[in-house]
């Protein structure tokens, strides 16, 4: 087990395709986090993230031989597969959106009610929630670069591999995405400022 844990992704994949369960388990534990978080941050739904993670590794079991190390890392390959699944799932969900979908999306987030709103750090949790909503409201092509480059800390090169586009495209999309995020988050800050200003003025009149 220890020896295998030192092996690279490509070697583990080779062993996995040869039927080595240990290699598959190691590979899964090593890469599932990235895939799951990417799907979660892209969709905002735990259910979709779980399904996508499962689908990605099932695909790796069935079609793992299509992975070409010359074209990029296994991590990028898996994120690329996850991206396709997420986008497909989101398209389907858009067609079948029930009334009150926004509430479901919020409810799908990790511990929205309990973990993210501890009483001792309410302001931080609220900020995170605002940013999360702003990211989720971005168009998919901007959202994916933000998720990859800002939240997953993936390099521009790897992001380009995942998205199947040029690095320059990743940069320009990220720039545009950040602009959109700022415009979405700014009003909230302004509202806060306005609220605090009104409180001050109310205090003056009091």
């Amino acid at each position, binding site marked *: 087990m220890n020896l295998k844990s030192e092996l690279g992704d490509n070697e583990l994949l080779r062993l996995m395709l040869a*039927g080595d*369960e240990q290699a*598959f*388990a190691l590979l*899964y*534990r090593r890469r*599932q*986090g990235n*895939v*799951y*978080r990417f799907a*979660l*941050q892209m969709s905002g739904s735990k259910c979709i*993230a*779980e399904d996508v*993670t*499962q689908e990605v*590794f*099932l695909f790796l*079991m069935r079609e793992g031989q299509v992975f070409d190390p010359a074209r990029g890392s296994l991590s990028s390959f898996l994120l690329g597969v996850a991206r396709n699944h997420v986008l497909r799932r989101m398209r389907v969900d858009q067609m079948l959106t029930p009334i009150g979908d926004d509430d479901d999306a919020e409810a799908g987030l*990790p511990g929205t009610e309990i973990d*993210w709103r501890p009483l001792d750090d309410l302001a*931080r949790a609220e*900020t*995170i929630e*605002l*940013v*999360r909503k702003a*990211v989720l409201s971005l168009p998919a092509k901007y959202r994916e670069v*933000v998720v990859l480059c*800002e*939240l*997953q*800390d993936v390099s521009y090169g790897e992001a380009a591999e995942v998205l199947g586009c040029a690095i320059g495209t990743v940069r320009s999309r990220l720039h545009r995405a*950040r602009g959109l*995020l*700022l415009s979405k*988050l*700014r009003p909230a*800050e302004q509202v806060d400022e306005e609220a605090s200003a009104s409180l001050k003025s109310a205090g003056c009149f009091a």
Partner: protein
Amino acid sequence: MNSQRFDEETLNRNLALLAEETASLNAPPEVEQKLLEVFRARRVSAPTYGRYWLVAAAAMILIVIGVVALRSQTDKPKPEFARQTEQPPIKQQPIVEEPKVDQPQPAPQQFVAERPRRRSIRRAPRSEVANHMNREIATDFMPLGYLNPATLQDGGQIIRVEVPRSALVNFGLPVNPDRYHEKVKADVLFGVDGMAHAIRFVKNQ
């Protein structure tokens, strides 16, 4: 400018907060369990795929052998045909030829029903007929009762028989009273319906 830099910094900080918050998230253990089960199931079923391939390959080989055997059989009629021609001509051997009936007749191509029969039955007797024709004198075919030529379109058979010479009288042919009780050869034309449609009398030269 300052406010923009402030915005950028705030955005970076907020995004970092979100990234930090989600950094520890992982797929639930049930997903791993399910995937491992699937992996084990696939590993178990993997050899059976190999077996399926073997079975498929064996089936293919059998099919090829079958096709080759069938082809070789269909090419064999020649020896069979030779055997038929070697047999001595028997009295009631079926002879298929174009009947010479007084009434309008169907085209010769329409007379024969199926191709395989044509190859095995028709060609061998043809030489016989030719030999007979050289040695025999035959009357024209005379209808036995009403003959509808359409009944001969599906084919028919000519069978050599011997009939009493007195039968010639029924067709208006002259009979030597001294040989009244002798027999004479005749070819009877049977249709596919099994009915005798015409007759001709044959005399050796």
